[in-house]
């Protein structure tokens, strides 16, 4: 028979766990709202920028005129993958989903005869990939404020430009959890070098009927635009990932709170039953004692 005291302690400890998880849920929910707003408001800039870039690239008929950093190198050998994880845990399958996905991507690339380098964002990714034998070119941590997110995006951009110019990488992709809704996040790849043009196709019809004049000339403008575009794309993925992180934490903490509630119910039932059993037992003892007299 379970000990009453033990049960009581157990119940109170589950209760305090529930308090913590429900507080974490509230915090995640309010952070999610802010992160979502940020992600949405940054979209305007990113869209305009990619529109300008696509009308610029679309205006150049011969793709050989475009810089390598836009079109990518032929016979690319080394791919860089930027992995956007979170700094903190307790957010369900947020990171493990991402890492599982990345593993598949990496073996795909290696199957094509390319070597893979990794850049990690967030503590979780850096501690995970430290244990593997992959080549980590850089790690970024502590993305706890919006200023810091922008700063990290800038650092990542500088790093990939530098690596590309030194021929240390030929391709760059970025992996992040795309924020679909509060209950669903989707690991997504985006190619930075060569520039993915799924968005350009949409704008094509629009950019064709407006023929822009450019100032200064196209090449100079591209020189300015390309790094700026990297920065925006990276920043956007960082923001998406942070919105997803809070959403994932919110749902998993919600589940944890509910589980804790169920557990308390069960434990309370056992506690009451046990208590009743003790009382009955004592009564029987008294009655049979009285009968014996």
């Amino acid at each position, binding site marked *: 028979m379970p000990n009453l005291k033990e049960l009581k302690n157990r119940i109170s400890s589950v209760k305090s766990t529930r308090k913590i998880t429900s507080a974490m849920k509230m915090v995640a929910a309010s952070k999610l709202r802010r992160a979502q707003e*940020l992600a949405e*408001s*940054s979209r*305007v*800039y*990113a869209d*305009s*920028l990619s*529109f*300008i870039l696509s*009308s*610029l690239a679309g205006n150049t008929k011969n793709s050989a005129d475009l810089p390598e950093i836009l079109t990518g190198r032929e016979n690319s050998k080394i791919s860089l993958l930027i992995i956007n994880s979170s700094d903190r845990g307790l957010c369900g399958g947020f990171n493990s989903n991402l890492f599982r996905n990345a593993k598949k991507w990496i073996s795909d690339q290696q199957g094509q005869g390319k070597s893979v380098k990794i850049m990690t964002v967030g503590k979780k990714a850096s501690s995970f990939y430290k244990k593997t034998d992959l080549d980590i070119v850089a790690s970024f941590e502590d993305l706890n404020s*919006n200023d810091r997110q*922008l700063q990290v995006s800038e650092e990542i951009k500088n790093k990939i430009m530098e690596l590309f110019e030194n021929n240390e990488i030929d391709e760059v992709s970025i992996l992040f959890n795309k924020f679909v809704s509060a209950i669903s996040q989707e690991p997504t790849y985006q190619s930075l070098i060569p520039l993915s043009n799924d968005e350009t196709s949409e704008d094509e019809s629009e950019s064709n009927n*407006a*023929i*822009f*004049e*450019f*100032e*200064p000339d196209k090449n*100079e*403008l591209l020189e*300015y*635009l390309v790094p*700026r575009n990297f*920065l*925006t794309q990276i*920043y956007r993925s960082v923001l998406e990932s942070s919105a997803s992180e809070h959403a994932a934490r919110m749902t998993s903490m919600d589940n944890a709170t509910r589980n804790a509630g169920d557990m308390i119910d069960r434990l309370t039932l056992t506690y009451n039953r046990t208590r009743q059993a003790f009382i009955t037992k004592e009564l029987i003892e008294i009655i049979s004692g009285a009968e014996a007299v």
Partner: protein
Amino acid sequence: MINLKVVSPQKVIFEKEVEMAVLPGAEGDFAAMPNHSPFISSLRPGQMAIMSSNKVDESFFVSGGLVMLKEKVCEVLVDQIEPLSDVNSSNYQQSKTYQELEGNETVLGTFEQVVNNPPYK
């Protein structure tokens, strides 16, 4: 009237109908007015002015960026924008474009040159 939309990487800073906006283009100042030919340019650090009936309504300091002009839309993508009155020589030197050019003032112009050289006469 032309729709002037000023956007930073973080957010839309403002969007309003203006008669004319004067912008510091990389190769010279230009005025954005309705039915300007489609035009894309980068911006150098300098002053942006919103004008109506030949006088300045508001002026801003922009640290550089891009502008896209279409018929009735003028989209300005800026790194940083401040009302001109809030800018002083120390935060001018901290602006992103200034840092990127490593304070090369011959390209950029000194703070006095930028601030005392309004694009409108």
